[in-house]
């Protein structure tokens, strides 16, 4: 039905939907792009699970790039690892929860929940789509952990197991508690409103005196859970801030709660009046609602990763000439490890084989792989390029060069300390003025009637309760957080927005942030290169350390060199070599005296000539992200921009031309240097936003005012940071900044709005005219109007900035 005629429509893989250009496998009248995809289909069709393909079109993931090493899950046989991964175990069954980043559609849920039809050892499985987790129950005698993981990965759903998972699993359940508090407040508030309703309509005369007092006592009863359970967090927070001799937003709130509660008790028990218990209930209900709104978290993201999340869980160790796969935690100094192509080096090691290439881009930002010879030290965090090699461990994984960074002090302290949010600054002023107005009213009235004086004093405290004030920040920031989230910038908490708004300096990492390594490509135009010319080229570029030479070297691949007669490098221009009496030149247009005539590519062309005859030229695409230029230009109008790079300074000139907005360039920066640079900025008083990607930026991200980790795949690893930005949204960084700044204005405007309410309320209160009805109308009205105002205005601003989207995609 979907593909009536495969000859007309381009053949697409039945499993993953990728076009079958390179390879086309026909199986049961269906096309597959690779053996892996076909294999998954076979497993499914054998077990009569082809429904998988009917729920969504092309539900699978391409199986092309999968590593097929059979023994890579061997470490799961280790009982210690098993113990750490399981949730529950008894004699017959074991429960596991796996994180599977590939869960993306309804078909995934269906298949993973039907695992028991493929393997009888699975008792049941349940998917949490949002968290991308699956909980599986298996029976102990039929299936082992390793077999289960092998089964999952054979279906294309390989679980992600990393070292930090093996640590403590439990996450704090603080949000559940807040929801319970909200439920209690809502329950009490609703019931109190029912009992207070007669009061509002002056219907009390119609009712018995008995009813009146019963309703009042019921209100007292219902207020107890509010005061002693729902509001507890506010007491703690206010007390903590008073202990530090500071006034935060919760101090006036607690003052209001206490005043409302005690005054109502006094009214109800002494005067047989109605009291303000319903207003108290409403106050707490709205406050907690705002708190939950602000607490919105991105459950699937982890912001506090350390190096453990990057390192492999298992390594292959040689012991008495046999390979064994062991968990990384069991590696000790002196072990001989076998590392394969594209694998991460887990600890500082010494190479035992002749030579290898290590890609340190993750650690240092240097793009070009480094050659390591026998006996040299390889730092942990590097990635092996090429054939497998053996190495012997020098330092345990937790003490390597890279992990050393985590011992820096900046990882100890939390960023939020020492920062005063806008709302706290205002609340200090607010509390002082409310208290002085209240005392002024007390003194004024006590000349005539002390009773009214006390009433006015308490009334001011009650009505000035900063409900609306306290709600403007959480609702504005909460909504901003959601809008950012829809635009693929995920912030750790709402406080980051305020910090973003204040920052004046942007610091970018180069490799992987401003540039995209995947984009850097190299193309050759001209006569086809013979094997001999390739070998000559290889010998020439190997001589030079220029980045373009390195790129060409990579493009040439592993071929053998010639011994050249002579070679000379003209710095910044090109290479000149002699071989068998012929002159070879490789370099810029000026150097080779040739004109290709592609103006736009100037500086990225490398011509190859033999005896002054042009053979061909290399076209090297700069790896700069396509939005980088506009982002830097827009930001440079408001901020200072620095660039930090672990790379050599060879690209300085080119970058300066392309990105004129950058005021400072720093090259050859080690991860520690980057951290120190951010520290210097801090001591000079600038508030900096660091945008980085790799582990090498981890220190700088931590030390900066706001650290944003850029990642191509949100569910993949990113260093500990305040926010995670999807690389697709790189181009709208200026809009994010502008939006966070307008957010601050929205907060200020809503403060102004709630001040107006307070002035109205207080003007009644000082005259001693406050009544429960007045309170019951004014308080919810002010809260709701502030919430409406903040939500609407943030949405309007988002729409103006082009950030307003209904749904993220």
């Amino acid at each position: 039905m979907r593909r009536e005629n495969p000859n007309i429509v381009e053949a697409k893989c039945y499993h993953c939907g990728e076009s079958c250009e390179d390879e086309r496998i026909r199986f049961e009248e269906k096309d597959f792009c690779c053996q892996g995809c076909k294999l998954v289909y076979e497993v499914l069709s054998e077990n009569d699970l082809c429904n998988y393909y009917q729920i969504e079109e092309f539900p699978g993931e391409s199986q092309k790039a999968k590593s097929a090493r059979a023994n890579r899950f061997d470490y799961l046989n280790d009982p210690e690892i098993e113990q750490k991964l399981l949730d529950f175990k008894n004699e017959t069954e074991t429960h596991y929860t796996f994180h599977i980043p590939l869960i993306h559609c309804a078909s995934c849920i269906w298949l993973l929940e039907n695992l028991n039809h493929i393997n009888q050892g699975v008792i049941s499985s349940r998917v949490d789509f949002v968290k991308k987790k699956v909980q599986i129950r298996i029976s102990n005698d039929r299936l082992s952990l390793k077999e289960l993981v092998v089964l999952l990965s054979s279906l294309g759903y390989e679980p992600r197991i990393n070292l930090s998972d093996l640590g403590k699993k439990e996450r704090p359940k603080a949000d559940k508690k807040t929801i319970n508090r909200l439920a209690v407040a809502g329950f009490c508030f609703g019931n109190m409103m029912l009992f207070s309703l007669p009061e509002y309509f002056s219907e009390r005369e119609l009712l018995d005196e008995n009813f009146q007092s019963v309703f009042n006592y019921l209100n007292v009863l219902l207020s107890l859970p509010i005061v002693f359970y729902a509001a507890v967090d506010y007491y703690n927070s206010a007390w903590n801030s008073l202990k530090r001799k500071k006034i935060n937003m919760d101090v006036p709130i607690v003052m209001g709660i206490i005043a409302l509660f005690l005054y109502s008790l006094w009214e109800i028990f002494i005067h047989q009046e109605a009291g303000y218990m319903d207003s108290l209930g409403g106050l707490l209900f709205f406050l907690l609602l705002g708190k939950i709104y602000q607490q919105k978290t991105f459950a699937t993201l982890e912001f506090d990763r350390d190096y453990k999340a990057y390192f492999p869980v298992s390594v292959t160790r040689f012991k008495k000439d046999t390979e064994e796969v062991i968990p990384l935690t069991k590696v000790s100094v002196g072990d001989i490890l076998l590392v394969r192509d594209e694998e991460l080096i887990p600890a500082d090691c010494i190479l035992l084989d002749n030579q290898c290439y290590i890609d340190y881009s993750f650690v240092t930002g240097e793009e070009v792989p480094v050659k390591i010879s026998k006996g040299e030290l390889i730092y942990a965090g590097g990635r092996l390029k090429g054939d497998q090699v053996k190495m012997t461990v020098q330092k345990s994984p937790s003490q390597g060069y890279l992990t050393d960074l985590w011992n820096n002090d900046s990882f100890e302290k939390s960023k939020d300390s020492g920062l005063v949010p806008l709302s706290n600054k205002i609340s200090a002023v607010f509390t002082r003025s409310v208290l002085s107005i209240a005392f002024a009213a007390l003194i004024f009235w006590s000349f005539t009637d002390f009773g009214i004086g006390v009433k006015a004093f308490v009334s001011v405290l009650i009505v000035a309760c900063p409900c609306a004030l306290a709600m403007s920040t959480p609702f504005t920031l909460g909504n901003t957080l959601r809008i950012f989230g829809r635009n693929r910038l995920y912030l750790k908490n709402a406080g980051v927005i305020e910090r973003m708004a204040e920052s004046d300096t942007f610091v970018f990492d180069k490799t992987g942030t401003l540039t995209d390594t995947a984009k850097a490509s190299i193309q050759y135009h001209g006569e086809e290169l013979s094997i001999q010319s390739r070998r000559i080229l290889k010998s020439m570029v190997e001589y030079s350390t220029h980045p373009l030479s390195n790129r060409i070297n990579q493009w040439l691949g592993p071929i053998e060199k010639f011994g050249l007669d002579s070679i000379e490098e003209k710095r910044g221009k090109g290479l000149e070599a002699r071989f068998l009496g012929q002159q070879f030149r490789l370099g810029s247009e000026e150097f080779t005296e040739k004109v290709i005539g592609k103006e736009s590519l100037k500086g990225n062309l490398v011509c190859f000539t033999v005896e002054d005859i042009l053979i061909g030229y290399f076209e090297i695409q700069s790896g700069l992200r396509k939005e980088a230029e506009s982002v830097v230009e827009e930001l440079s109008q408001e901020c200072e921009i620095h660039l930090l790079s672990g790379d050599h300074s060879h690209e300085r000139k080119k970058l300066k031309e392309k990105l004129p907005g950058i005021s400072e360039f720093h090259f050859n920066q080690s991860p520690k240097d980057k951290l120190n640079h951010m520290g210097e900025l801090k001591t000079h008083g600038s508030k900096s936003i660091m945008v980085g990607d790799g582990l090498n930026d981890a220190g700088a991200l931590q030390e900066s005012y706001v650290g944003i980790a850029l990642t191509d795949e949100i569910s993949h690893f990113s260093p500990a940071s305040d926010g995670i930005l999807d690389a697709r949204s790189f181009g709208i960084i200026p809009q994010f900044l502008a939006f966070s700044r307008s957010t601050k204005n929205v907060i200020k405007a809503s403060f102004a709005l709630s001040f107006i309410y307070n002035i109205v309320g207080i003007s009644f209160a000082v005259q001693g005219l406050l009544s429960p009805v007045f309170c019951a109308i004014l308080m919810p009205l002010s809260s709701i109007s502030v919430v409406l105002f903040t939500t609407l205005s943030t949405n309007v601003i988002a729409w103006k900035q082009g950030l307003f989207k209904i749904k993220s995609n």
Partner: protein
Amino acid sequence: MEVIFLLIAISLVLAVSFLLLFFRANKGGQFDDNHTPAIRILFDNEHKQKVKKDQPKKT
């Protein structure tokens, strides 16, 4: 009119039991995932017993 006292008592007991049920549901994780069940309910429940078919299903 005195019956209202009784009604109030009943209504409060009822409301409190709903609150307790909510606590239980919250603790049991019923509100942890509010996306997957919405998809899950649309799956066909019937699953054929493991009978190997010669012909693969047509799409």
